[in-house]
């Protein structure tokens, strides 16, 4: 029974990976580094998610400020 669950889990993981490949592999994106830089729109914001080995953490997600003035 344990092995059955294990194989079933592996199968599910593989299925997700293959599906992601099929769905997203053909999505349009700009291939070259220069293209991505030159077509960038502004303001352009960067993010640093920590050093090697640290997975990305989005904090705090989608939070909006209440700024009321500006120079744009």
């Amino acid at each position, binding site marked *: 029974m344990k092995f059955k669950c294990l194989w079933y889990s592996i199968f599910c993981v593989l299925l997700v990976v293959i599906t992601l490949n099929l769905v*997203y592999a053909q*999505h349009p994106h700009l291939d070259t580094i220069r293209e991505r830089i030159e077509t960038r729109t502004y303001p352009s914001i960067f993010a640093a998610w920590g050093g090697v080995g640290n997975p990305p953490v989005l904090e705090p997600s989608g939070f909006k400020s209440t*700024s009321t003035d500006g120079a744009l």
Partner: protein
Amino acid sequence: MGLYDVHWASYFLYWAPTRDGLDIEPVIPVGHISVAKNWQRWIWHYNPEMLFFYSKNINSIYHTELPVDSPFWLRDDDGNRVWAGDGHYYLNFTKPELQDLMIKEIVMAAESGFYDGVHFDSWRCCDLVGYYDYDTETQARTDILKGIREQVHPDFLIMVNTNRDRPESEHVPYLNGLHMETVWGFPPGHPDYPYAVPGIYQIERTLSWAIENLRQPIVNSFEGFGIAEQDFDSPDNIRWMRLFTTMSLTLDNGTVLYNKGKGHGHSHHWYDFWDADLGQPIGPKAQHYLVEGRHRYAGLYIREFTNGWAVYNRSGQPVKIELPDIGVSVATRKVCYNPYSHCARWGYLPPISPNECCC
């Protein structure tokens, strides 16, 4: 995450430790690098302009990442490792063997196809002071940059964190961008709370220099530090956020961030000011705005974009900006009519204040 144009992170890619304490085979806990690439393609779907940097610090590493008796540690006269703080010890990157490993690591990251560039943190002379002289340390850093550049794609991006300073001239030909981590009180012992006028001048000069003198394609990452003691949307933080954002927009073609301040790393809030869709720049960088068509104020810049204008004003006095067309202020949502439709003001908060719009 799709809102950001530049990311520094490993993104699920880990370096597997070996018995020697070093291994430069990129692996991930589960799966293969193709998993990370799938994720990357997915996120590109939301923002196809996104760039990914591998983050690296050559100066020091966490104490468990190398054996205690490794020859790669920097050692004092007694043979002890040199403490770098926060669980880290300094590395002796003047050793050619260590340089070769570092170069190989970055080249492998480049060849993985996941990363568009490398971001070197703490790229400043002289971390090895007292152990090696300026020339030796500078040459070591040059050798690492040269070794990487010789083996990676010509457009592979190399960015270094020099805080507020220019990099050493020897390094300039290899660099595509600066990470300007403009921390307060930099250099240490020189309090700059929050940012004194000379500090702002220095930041402006370095930013303007970088966009003109580094290797193409250039991507700078310009980071202002927030006032941690205040809420992220306090009037001061809002003004400083706008100052750094508009400074980046008018003097540079790079990316910008305003973080939560000391003790918070790079964590930040997403300001709705950044939701403005300015499009692409069509005006020149560092263009002074002439008040009433003839008065030039130091520290007053304007730049036209396809969808609007950005104004940076640290002149110390309120000024009226005349736009050639009707505009809507991003922040006030007020319609600005020509002439003298847009008023930007700066200078009423000591010791320096970001611009404020009052159209």
